[in-house]
């Protein structure tokens, strides 16, 4: 990994952020012969160095120790990656191509040029090859099997979602190595000549005639880099904040979209807890509105899931080996905002759930609880204050009656849409991510997705980022005759 000394004063393209958007951008541009520098705020940590979903990982690879909340009633906890490789280093690794009807909706409602679903198929194929997207070898983990079995008993559609993992010969479900950006596109970018500098925070961007001045902080010192072009790939929260700090405010950060989730934990007769592994099954019967899946369930996270009703529920933490945490995710009608505040490094994030969202969350949690009962749970513990212990179908009536999103632990791990792409007037960037109100700045991360896709967004982010980077590279080489 390059150190601060590797930071030049000039470069052709500077990429802010090294996650799903930044890493793919860097690889595509570097392989096209462009001089690329990637600056990343976080540190470089190799896959396997830290226990996934642990408090240590949250401290070193998540922003703000993982204690980030979108303010509102209720507040919605979210997570951001802050490390080389970004969110891809810390997420579940589940991979789903964006559905064709979502791509069509984005194209039609936001006026995105050259955005046919077929174009994405070939890019998605490449990405899947590079990342080794595949299902689990052999049997899935017990907690994943519970989702599958409970769903089957109800006649509700479920499927195993592939992950980008590499498994050793004869490996099992939990022996995979994650094919995150530090394992794939970043090494590719570096092999093609890109420089990646970690511990480097961009304060703001300044247009300067023939380039963009990138005002940043590295190793405690202020530095400036003059770039011909800047790609902003800091994620759906940091990207709009940086643009706002740089004077680009119109339609930026006002349309944050997420996948709100509520959760429960359930106890089973057998030992089902697999600690750091996330179930690969998802219930898709109610897509796109509802989706059920499993979360990391090591004892600390389980205690957290029980904490909303600790006096009644806490006791069962001692049976953690027999328990697992599951979530119900919705597509949300509501939206949120990211607002950079003068005097603060971090922006304020807010989000508003609509009534329909709240009703959907209730219905989702109730259905998920039924899946658990059908999977053989002896008790289900819904994560909201005032929740009943659910032991049978009759208790589901109480779960539904007492639920309020305001008293629940609502969270999201997916954030997008703060800088939506398209030719439509409400889009601050064009069909390829180029900022309309400025020259030489392009956004190329989850901020571009016009709304939340209803599936894990990484596949969409990567495919779009590659498409946009290729478009840029082609035009650049075209203009360089």
């Amino acid at each position, binding site marked *: 990994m390059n150190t601060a000394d590797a930071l030049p004063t000039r470069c052709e393209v500077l990429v802010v952020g090294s996650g799903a958007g930044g890493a793919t951008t860097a690889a595509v541009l570097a392989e096209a012969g462009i001089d690329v520098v990637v600056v990343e705020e976080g540190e470089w940590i190799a896959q396997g160095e830290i226990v996934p979903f642990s408090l240590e990982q949250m401290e070193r690879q998540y922003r703000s120790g993982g204690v980030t909340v979108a303010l509102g009633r209720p507040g919605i906890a979210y997570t951001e990656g802050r490390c080389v490789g970004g969110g891809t280093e810390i997420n579940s690794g589940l991979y789903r191509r964006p559905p064709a009807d979502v791509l069509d909706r984005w194209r039609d409602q936001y006026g995105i040029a050259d955005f046919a679903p077929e174009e994405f198929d070939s890019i998605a194929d490449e990405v899947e090859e590079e990342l080794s997207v595949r299902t689990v070898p052999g049997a899935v983990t017990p907690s994943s099997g519970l989702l599958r079995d409970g769903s089957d008993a109800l006649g*509700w559609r479920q499927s195993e979602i592939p992950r980008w993992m590499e498994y050793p010969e004869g490996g099992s479900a939990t022996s995979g190595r994650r094919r995150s950006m530090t394992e794939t596109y970043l090494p590719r970018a570096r092999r093609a000549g890109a420089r990646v500098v970690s511990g480097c925070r961009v304060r703001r961007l300044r247009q300067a005639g023939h380039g963009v001045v990138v005002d940043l902080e590295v190793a405690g010192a202020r530095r400036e880099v003059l770039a011909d072009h800047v790609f902003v790939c800091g994620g759906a929260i940091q990207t709009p904040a940086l643009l706002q700090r740089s004077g680009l405010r119109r339609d930026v950060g006002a349309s944050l979209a997420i996948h709100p989730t509520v959760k429960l934990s359930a106890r089973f007769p057998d030992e089902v807890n697999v600690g750091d592994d996330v179930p690969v099954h998802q219930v898709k019967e109610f897509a796109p509105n509802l989706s059920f899946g499993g979360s990391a369930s090591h004892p600390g996270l389980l205690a957290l899931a029980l904490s909303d009703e600790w006096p009644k529920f806490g006791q069962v933490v001692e049976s953690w080996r027999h328990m697992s945490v599951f979530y119900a995710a919705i597509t949300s009608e509501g939206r949120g905002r990211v607002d950079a505040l003068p005097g603060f490094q971090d922006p304020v994030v807010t989000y508003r759930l609509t009534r329909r969202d709240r009703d*959907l969350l209730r*219905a989702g949690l109730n*259905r998920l609880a039924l899946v658990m009962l059908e999977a053989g749970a002896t008790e289900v513990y819904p994560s909201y204050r005032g929740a009943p212990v659910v032991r049978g179908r009759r208790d589901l*009536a109480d779960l539904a009656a007492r639920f309020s999103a305001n008293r629940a632990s609502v969270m999201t791990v997916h954030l997008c849409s703060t800088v939506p792409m398209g030719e439509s007037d409400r889009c601050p960037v064009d069909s390829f991510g180029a900022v309309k109100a400025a020259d030489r700045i392009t956004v190329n991360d989850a901020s571009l997705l016009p709304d939340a896709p209803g599936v894990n967004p990484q596949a969409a982010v990567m495919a779009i980022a590659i498409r946009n980077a290729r478009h840029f590279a082609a035009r650049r080489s075209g203009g360089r005759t």
Partner: protein
Amino acid sequence: MNSRLDPPPTTVVTGATGWLGTALLHALTAEGARWGRPGRIRALVHRASEVLVTARISPRIDPVVADITRPRSLTQVFSDLEPGSFDVVHTAGIIHPPDVATFERVNAQGTRNVLQAARAAGVRRFVHVSSNSPFGTNPIPSEYFRREEPYAPYFGYGISKMEAELLVRDSIDDGLDAVIVRPPWFYGPHQPARQTTFFTMVRTGRFPIVGDGRQRRSMVYVDHLVQGVVLAELVERPMYRAWWIADREPYPLEHVIQTVGEALRAEGYEVAENSLRVPAFVGRFAEAADRVIQKSGRYVTQVHVLGEMDKTIAVDVSAAVDDLGYDPDTSLLDGMRRSIRWCRARGITL
């Protein structure tokens, strides 16, 4: 699709004077009719004054005065029946009672009493008529209830119907051969006064459409419901034991109102343009008021109905189609027209 049992020598129908009960009595006894059957129909009525009216439907009907909330009055209903020689179709229940306590007494306790008496007498197959109410409402218009759903009862009626279902399910687990039929909002001949009021409101252009009218409601033409009940009663060795029985697709509420208007016009009535649009928040206010009223033990029909008007209650009947060969073939327009003609034939003013 499963094969069918023969109809039993005796069919016991509770709630025989109700909407579904009356329709059933006609359907089971009409000679040469689709669901007609030989044998006797034992019809439970509330009062002696209803005996004659019920008996007049067919000479094969034996009315019996009984109160399902009093276990002792039920023993004589079954006492002379041979075990295995009768089915029970339990349609008795109350939807709009004078107070909340009546829900529990009639719908839950009443069901328990009928279950017990029927089992003790050796019922062959028990058909329980349930409702959408134990499952609440759908959170968005494009959603719908699947074959299996969690309970989320909608207030007093929903809770009592959920209790009834749970009693039936417990009996099934305990060895009773029982099935559950879940119908939504009825329409069709034999309709009660409240449905007449509904038609009148549409005719005079004063039916309140809450919100944008796109909320979807599943409805069931009463003949479709009779079909569903009979198919569920006679299906041999069912793997699943509960089905939604409704018209094939849910209807946007706006479409229901328009179709009723069209049916009225087709039957020669003058219909005023429906102009009563009510903002969505009124529906929510009514729902909140309904909650408060019911919590205090009281019940006000109009508030309850208004509170439910902006909701989507949509169900998927494909399980009944697949398992039972259920085939609802009357269109909404035709069903409404037949209802109107039935009203006119009885001199009911719309």
